[in-house]
């Protein structure tokens, strides 16, 4: 378990911004894997969207290719 208090925000802006880019990329990858898994388990787009806190349209627009790769579009 990661304690958020353990996260050190670098004082050098270049380093801090590099961390932001890497975190976004990591989050994107986790999101795609989680959506792939959800679709595989039969989740609907409404349910996925609700879990992500976005609209069904937004979820589908951003992640519909995951469904295509999953073979259940």
């Amino acid at each position, binding site marked *: 378990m*990661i304690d958020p208090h353990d996260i050190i925000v*670098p004082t050098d802006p270049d380093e801090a911004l*590099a*961390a932001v880019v890497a*975190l976004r990329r990591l989050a994107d990858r986790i999101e*795609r894997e989680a959506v792939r898994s959800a679709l595989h388990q039969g989740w609907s787009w409404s349910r996925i969207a609700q879990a992500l806190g976005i609209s069904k349209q937004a979820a589908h627009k951003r992640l519909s290719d995951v469904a295509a790769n999953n073979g259940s579009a």
Partner: protein
Amino acid sequence: MFQAIKSKLDNMSIIKRLCERAETYAVQDQQREPGAEHFLLAALDLPDGTARLAFERAGVEPDALRAAIERQYADALRSIGLKADIPAGAPMPANPGAYRAASSGREIMQDLAATRKDHSRLLGAHVVGIVAGMPHGVAARALRALDIDPVVLKSTADAIAEASRIR
């Protein structure tokens, strides 16, 4: 006249190849829009060989770039105390419709367009020179991860491009 038209057509074909390769690298990296780092990888694949030559003359193995791009992400996470094994994941499909590059990728294309009169033929070394001059971003951090001095890489790439223009 004929030579000028031929040169323009050749450059269009090179730009097409560069953009397509950059997009391929981007989707393999699970990104829809290629950034400077993907254009740099694409430049190393151009058949003129000048991008690879610039790396080699700067003392760096060109094939090490891809791993360095990955490494700088891990280093950035480690700098805030996170150790994450980033899942590789499947490539995502390219953007449908018109070609779109990420901001850093667009910067390269704009720079190439702005300096097109300086080069009769577009070379991989031109792309390397532009990317080496970028102080920030994924590509700059990947070059630092390779221990490349960007000033040296830029001057080497520019010299190779200039020598090719004179020839």
